[in-house]
């Protein structure tokens, strides 16, 4: 119960820090001093105090979407293993519900972008929808393979591979981590798929979809985007750390450290490489599918190899 409460608090408030750490890292590599890591939180608070401007083309869908996006992201977060490797809602086949709840939010994000009648936002929406079609099947293959390896139908199967699959488990874990990093960069719209710092270039995806949102609506959407980041980082953390074996304190420590390290990694990555050209982004995301297929074949070899 207490673990769940702590997990919930982390889920709600870690996003600001994670984004802050990424920004700090980028500033560090650029030789700048950078803003405080608390800045995203202050930005959020400021947004929540603001009034908003709404396009007169839009309808109630546009006002409803931020609420749905936030609610779905948070509820999806309840299915993700965090400290102790335990999700708040631990359910067999939980990853399916997790993915589909996020899909519900995405549906609203897409139609809300289209609601403005802006060609920019249409562009963002069509790309976002397109990328999802590549990411999701690969994610399902990975999760199903891990479930087949560990025999555990819940999300906890992530942290059991090292324990259950031996040497092959290390290889599979590495591949899964790589695939999930690609997924994180795509879903959270980071370089090289998307650049969160600029709005108005024709290659933008997520930022351009929320071009017309302002005030509290924008605040909720950025919060939700941060939570999504924490969710995907938690999945990677769960892969790397056998959380359920090492006890509460160690797993809490490892988990927080993992969040921090992954954020630093993302920041470093963004400082090192440039955004890919749109036509190459597809190829980048397809890497995730190939990782997924390799994981599937390794799983088959591991189970039926002898």
């Amino acid at each position, binding site marked *: 119960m207490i673990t769940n409460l702590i997990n919930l608090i982390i889920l709600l408030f870690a996003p600001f820090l994670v984004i802050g750490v990424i920004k700090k890292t980028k500033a560090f590599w650029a030789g700048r001093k950078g803003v405080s890591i608390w800045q995203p939180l202050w930005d959020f608070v400021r947004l929540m105090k603001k*009034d*908003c*401007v*709404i*396009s*007169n*083309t839009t*309808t109630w*869908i546009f006002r*409803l979407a931020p*609420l749905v996006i936030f*609610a779905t992201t*948070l*509820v999806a977060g309840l299915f993700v293993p965090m400290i102790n490797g335990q999700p708040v809602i631990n*359910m*067999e*086949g939980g990853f*399916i*519900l997790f993915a*589909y*709840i996020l*899909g*519900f939010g*995405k*549906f609203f994000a*897409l*139609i809300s972008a*289209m*609601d*403005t*009648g*802006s*060609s*920019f936002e*249409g562009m963002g*929406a*069509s*790309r976002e*929808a*397109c990328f*999802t*079609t590549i990411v*999701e*099947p*690969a994610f*399902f*293959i990975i999760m*199903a393979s891990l*479930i*087949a390896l560990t*025999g555990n*139908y819940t999300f906890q199967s992530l942290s059991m591979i090292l324990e259950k699959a031996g040497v092959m488990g290390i290889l599979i874990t590495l591949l899964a981590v790589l695939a999930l990093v690609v997924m994180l960069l795509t879903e959270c719209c980071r370089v090289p798929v998307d650049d969160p710092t600029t709005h108005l270039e024709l290659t933008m995806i997520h930022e351009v979809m929320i*071009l*017309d949102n302002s005030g509290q609506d924008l605040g909720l959407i950025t919060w939700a985007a941060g939570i999504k980041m924490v969710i995907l980082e938690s999945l990677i953390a769960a892969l790397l750390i056998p959380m359920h074996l090492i006890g509460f304190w160690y797993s809490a420590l490892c988990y927080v450290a993992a969040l921090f390290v992954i954020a630093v990694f993302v920041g470093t990555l963004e400082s090192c490489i440039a955004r890919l050209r749109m036509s190459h982004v597809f190829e980048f995301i397809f890497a995730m599918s190939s990782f*997924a297929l390799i994981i*599937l074949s390794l*799983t*088959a070899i591991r*189970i*039926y190899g002898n």
Partner: protein
Amino acid sequence: MEIFYYALLTPIIGGAMSLFFSEKRKLKVVSFFAFISMILCLMTAVNVFASGESLVAVPNIFNGMFGAIKFVVDPLSAFFISFISVMSFLGCVYANGYMKPYMEKGMNVSSHCLFLSMLISSMLGVVTIQNVMFFLITWEIMSLSSFFLVIFEDNKKEVLNAGIKYLIYMHVSVIFIILAFVLLTLKSGSYDFNSFKEILSQNAQFANLVFMLAFVGFGIKAGFVPFHNWLPEAHPAAPSHVSAVMSGVMIKTGIYGILRILSLIVIPTAGISYFVLIISVITALYGILYAITQRDLKRLLAYSSIENIGIIGIGMGVGMLGLAHHSMPVAVLGFGGCILHILNHSIFKELMFFAAGSVYNKTHTRNIEVLGGLLKSMPKTALLCLIGSIAICGLPPFNGFISEFLIYFGMLKGALTGNLGMLVLMILSLAGLALVGTMAILCFTKLYSITFLGMARSEHAEHVKEDVVSSMIFPMICLAVMTLLIGIFPQFVFELVTKPVSLFTGAIETPAIVGLLQTISFTAFGLLAFILALAILRKLANKKAASHCTWGCGYDKGNNHIQYTASSYASPFLSMLTPLFKKVFDIKKPKELFPKDAHFCLHIEDVEEAYIIKPFIKDIEKFFTVFERIQNGNIQQYILYGLIFLILALIALVFLG
């Protein structure tokens, strides 16, 4: 059982009665009788579900050389009659509003009413009759009456063409069904379905052959790829309530046929189960892929029906594999998902077709590229269509998710049954289903946002002033409520579904699955409550919201032409898959110094139609031109044929006699 006889006959009586009423009242009469039939069907179904025993009745009529006509309402049939009757009734109610403009134009609806009621009765008959001959007769009545419904606007050439295409497909389908049944009756010597059970369980190869024939025959009706081509033609041609009933209910009788044959086979072989699963995954992917390419509202929905038939087939395939590998949990989940998705699809597909019909009713166009901004003028239709769109994408908290979840979970269990082929195939189909899900999101966000959101793209959409009449809204509300109820309380619906499933798997233990569904129910409820709470909180915060035009990067004279279109929305995705389409360009480039008219039109053709069906038909035509020489319309020549025949006959007489 008497109740069911009445249920079966009331629609037809209604159709006959409607002939004696004035044009305006005809559809009301049909709806009234459909309502009575619905109540009676539901009573029968409740009776069967509650007692757990099937009703069998053999009325002593037509008791000739083909054996007696035999009605059996087992749980599977009870499931089918309950949703067939409900969906048909809603279709009839919707027709009241939808047909008004046609009646005002002076079109005659009496034959339409008659065929509509015949379709309802024959569908109820198809899923309950268990005698080969009478089954085929009812099946044929169903096909023919729906054919006449499709060609309601028979003054339009494309409608007639679509109707004839449908008719041809249905008769190719019936050939295969007859073949399957002829094989069965020859072996068993009886026309009764029950007598087939024994011979099918004895000889696996024979069972496979029969199943394949039945799968092709019923699969044409259901719309499995590669037999799907009639769907995208017939659905746009038919009036919307007819397409709704056809897509929501009638194509499911094809699935019923396959399930019925399967229930007689008892344990299918692994090979044929793999076949069903693979062809279903292909069907689902093919359907949704072409749905994304469509601009015609109803063609898009027709392709989406193909997709959903694929999902239903995936469930069936998973269930069959569970049976073949003696893994009951997999079989229960597979068949459970399959049967629940039959119900779910009929609910949200009817809802979507009704919404499409309402849009057509007000804008007189089915091309979504010229629509837009309809949410403001048609708020109720827009809200209901949104619910339908979310449900059809299989997203929680609506009903589509529940059946897909069951199938997914069945696949996960199937992957762990301890068989390499199962592991790989199940996980790949799982990915296939996930891909179908995300593509559905792309497809239906496109449909919804281009039709209802943004600014009106043409006069068609601009001139709409009011929403459709309440007789068209009411059925949609019923359907929307059903999608939500099944989505929020899946555990109860699953209990219901287990009854028909037990026909395939034997007694079922469900607590584990019901537990999962309870978690889903809890989550769905929590999600909705959370969104509501957030909305209330934002209301309480009471921030001002100023109104301004859409941000156009400093350029504030954006108009409806700069909006994204359906084609451009789908283009990044479709550009990845260009080899899978046949693109037909119609380009007129601007020329000269002051170019006047120029246009660009891209038409995407169905690959199967372009590369297989059309060349095939051409070859057939070529073959038959040979006979043109013989039958050329020249009377003298025909007389010559007669003369030659007579001479030959004489010669034969002389020499042989």
